[in-house]
């Protein structure tokens, strides 16, 4: 039985047991003779000692303790948990891509450079942007680069603008990225319709505003219908408009951010472009910009010159390097593969289906869970649990009970401005049957909350573990298995 919990690999370790051995090479110079004592490791690293089967079985069994897209419906809002095509992994991990060294001369890496160049062009086309950098390793790094680009742009114009306006519904990375880039975040209120409050926004715009950062659609799954006016006001004040493209899965093929007055936008390739989330990365957060910001993009950049693709670093206005090497290239290759599988028309069908599925799910759940804003949503919807109507059952309880029904939970308690929030994003790759089954489970839980609320509050009972002591974990952190010196 797996659900008794797995011992750690350290407990399974047996002194002297081996898996991988390296070829013995007689007569090579030895570190025992040549390496000065002060640089030599005294006791070997206390890694586990196990056979290959021990290791394979241990980690395979651990994997079986996870819910995942391949095994479960995973409606985690704002994360776009859509199907990840298998061929993309196969191609990215093939030797002709995975074995390339980042410092290889350009002429030996024309295939990968061409793929990256084409990916940039296609992202420009989908976003209505003029240039893209593929370097940011994740959405949060894309935001950070955007903040640096905005600072560099204003400084070049002789202006020292230090503030960034961010809606109170924004993801926490937005203000954190602003701080990292030495901009002061100013929070802007949302209105009763879940959109940016225009009056509050305009009152906070000033000659100090460097950047306005909007998530479109926003974290409530709603399109900012005043976006053209917001863009115009921002530009009139001399500020730039940044779009957090975390939710681009609702827009690809339907709207170009560049047509909305957006000056720059990052995309999360692990969301819209289907690269595996990997249990929390690696992702990729490319940043697209309009012409007036292109010179500030990070280096190196892929360029095409006389039929040769090259990595160029000599852009004097660039904000610089953001990581050691070009980017999360294996992720970029997967995204390029995904992109090539779809025409513009198909991208539109993807966005439309994502929007349709979210609205359908919302309609199915309406009898039991209130929508925060009762309007059509985009690719995700925000519902609320009402503990007063449900015998004190809260959103967290519903989430835990859902796991027992065999569904991963929606994003919960976010956005922060919505009490008892549940953020559901079904994505376009789920079938109507799955959505129907999920809705039946949700409605059954609502029914349970009325009749046997304790059953819901005690969930989960049937998973590998019950609810865990998070307070204790944070108060007295146990972050690694004890023991540092090898037993052998």
């Amino acid at each position, binding site marked *: 039985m797996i659900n008794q919990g797995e011992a750690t690999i350290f407990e399974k370790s047996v002194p002297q047991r081996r898996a991988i051995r390296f070829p013995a090479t007689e007569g090579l110079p030895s570190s025992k003779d040549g390496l000065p004592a002060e640089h030599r490791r005294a006791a070997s690293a206390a890694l586990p000692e196990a056979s290959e089967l021990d290791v394979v079985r241990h980690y395979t069994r651990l994997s079986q303790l996870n819910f995942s897209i391949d095994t479960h419906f995973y409606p985690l809002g704002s994360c776009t948990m859509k199907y990840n095509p298998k061929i993309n992994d196969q191609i990215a991990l093939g030797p002709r891509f995975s074995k390339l060294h980042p410092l290889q001369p350009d002429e030996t890496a024309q295939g990968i450079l061409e793929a990256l160049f084409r990916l940039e062009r296609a992202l420009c086309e989908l976003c209505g942007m003029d240039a893209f950098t593929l370097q940011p390793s994740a959405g949060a790094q894309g935001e950070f680069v955007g903040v640096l680009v905005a600072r560099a742009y204003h400084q070049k114009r002789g202006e020292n603008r230090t503030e960034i306006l961010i809606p109170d519904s924004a993801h926490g990375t937005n203000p*954190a990225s602003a701080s990292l880039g030495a901009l002061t975040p100013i929070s802007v209120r949302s209105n009763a319709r879940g959109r940016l409050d225009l009056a509050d926004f305009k009152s906070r715009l000033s000659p100090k505003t460097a950047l306005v950062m909007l998530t479109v659609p926003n974290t409530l799954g709603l399109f900012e219908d005043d976006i053209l006016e917001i863009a115009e006001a921002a530009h009139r004040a001399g500020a730039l408009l940044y779009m957090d493209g975390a939710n681009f899965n609702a827009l690809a093929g339907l709207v170009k951010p560049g047509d909305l007055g957006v000056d720059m936008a990052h995309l999360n390739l692990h969301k819209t472009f289907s690269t595996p989330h990997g249990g929390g990365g690696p992702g990729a957060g490319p940043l697209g910009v309009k012409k007036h910001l292109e010179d500030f993009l990070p280096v190196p950049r892929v360029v095409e010159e006389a039929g040769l693709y090259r990595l160029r670093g000599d852009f004097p206005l660039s904000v610089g390097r953001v990581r050691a090497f070009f980017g999360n290239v294996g992720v970029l290759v997967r995204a390029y593969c995904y992109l090539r599988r779809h025409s513009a028309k198909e991208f539109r069908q993807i966005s439309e289906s994502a929007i349709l599925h979210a609205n359908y799910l919302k309609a199915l759940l309406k009898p039991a869970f209130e929508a925060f804003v009762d309007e059509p949503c985009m690719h995700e919807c925000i519902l609320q649990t009402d503990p007063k109507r449900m015998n004190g059952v809260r959103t967290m309880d519903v989430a835990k009970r859902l796991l027992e029904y065999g569904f991963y939970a929606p994003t919960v308690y976010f956005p922060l401005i919505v009490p008892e929030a549940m953020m559901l994003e079904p994505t376009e790759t789920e079938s109507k049957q799955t959505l129907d089954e999920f809705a039946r489970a949700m409605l059954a839980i609502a029914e349970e909350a009325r009749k046997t609320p304790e059953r819901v509050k005690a969930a989960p009972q049937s998973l590998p573990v019950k609810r865990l002591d998070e307070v204790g974990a944070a108060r007295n952190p146990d972050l690694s298995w004890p023991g540092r010196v090898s037993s052998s």
Partner: protein
Amino acid sequence: MFVPTTEKERQEMLRKIGVGSFDELVGSIPEKARNPAYRLPKALTEMELARHMEALGAQNRLPLSFLGGGAQEHYIPAAVWAVALRGEFATAYTPYQAEASQGTLQLIYEFQSMVCRLLEMEVANASHYDGASALAEAVNVALLDFDGRNPGRRGAVKKVIFPETLHPHYRATLKTYFHQRADVRLECLPCPDGTLAPSVLAGYVDDSTAAVAASCPNFFGLLEPAGELCRAAHARGALFIACVDPVGMGILEPPGSYGADLAVAEGIGLGIPPSFGGPSLGLVAAKRSLLRKMPGRFCGLTADRDGRRGYVLTLQAREQHIRREKSSSNVCTNQALCATAATIHMALLGPEGLREAAELCYGLSHELASALADIPGFRLKFGGASFYNEFVLQCPQDASQAQKFLLKDDILAGYPLGADYPWLKDCLLVCATETKTRADLRRLAEAARKLPVAAAR
């Protein structure tokens, strides 16, 4: 396309929603921006895509390579990705619902444990983007710690010192991360002898120094006197940040044993292929006293309601989704799948496997260095200095030209240093890991013998 919904189902859904057409759902998008024209290529089937990518792949050459420079190639056992790519690992996300994510959580806990043991450090987080961004985050920890220890100086300039032997791309990344900060000054020290002398460092460290960062082995492959540098930093109250080679930890002194406050490493090579530079894996470890200033995710061991062992994401009060602009970092995810591969890789190698790999790196690179230095016109730039698996080779001509010449024999002899170090224009950085055989070394040496000597030397 991967949309399963049929036209009939679509109509059923629209009816249930209560709208007559899809357009009614997107009324909030400004009319004039809707449905623009796109110029994208036509869609490919899976088979056509495979063909297209094969053709692109054929344009990528894989010569016999002696490139290192911060992304060293190491053998990856087949079991690593066979297990890491299982859908349950690859297609899960951040373990927000711990009860349904115990696999990823326990794995991260084991990863943190292995990183601690590898580096002999007290705490390690769930990983970072790559070695360079990991260093930037570690520097940020040191800056926060400095402010905490010196409340009276808040806002005054803090120095971060590193030698030019730190990877040039890491130095560039530090500049990108901190150049907008009015209270931070980065100071790069020249190292004409290839390593930083502790006495030189001591002349630069003062009471305004928040951190000294150095790599060991350094970018030239040389072993810095890390212990002495660490003591020189500590003497003036600065923290010491060590950048290390994780495979080298099989034989090299770990940073925890010489007192480093923070240690970072690039995980390419720990089960992660170079992939043109990413995805990679940044390891970040520290002394326990710095725990609450550390960036990124941590997984902790705890108990459930029945007292059964279980794992959760913990110390989240530091993170951006709670602290927002006051958090110590904007990092949201880690490189979980790369950490998964690295964990399986380390478990397969074990202490002996890691030692064997590191010993082969040492032995093969030293044999190669001797063979190349024996060829007339070539010499080791930093002669008798100790190195691990990479060395600087002075060539009888411009190193970029030498690289080009050897590429004709399908050999990538190393990385020309001139672009990053103008005083090393005739030098190649050459690396040999356990992936090379003695026959490979001979092939390089024989090809190098044919290199023409430049007239203007």
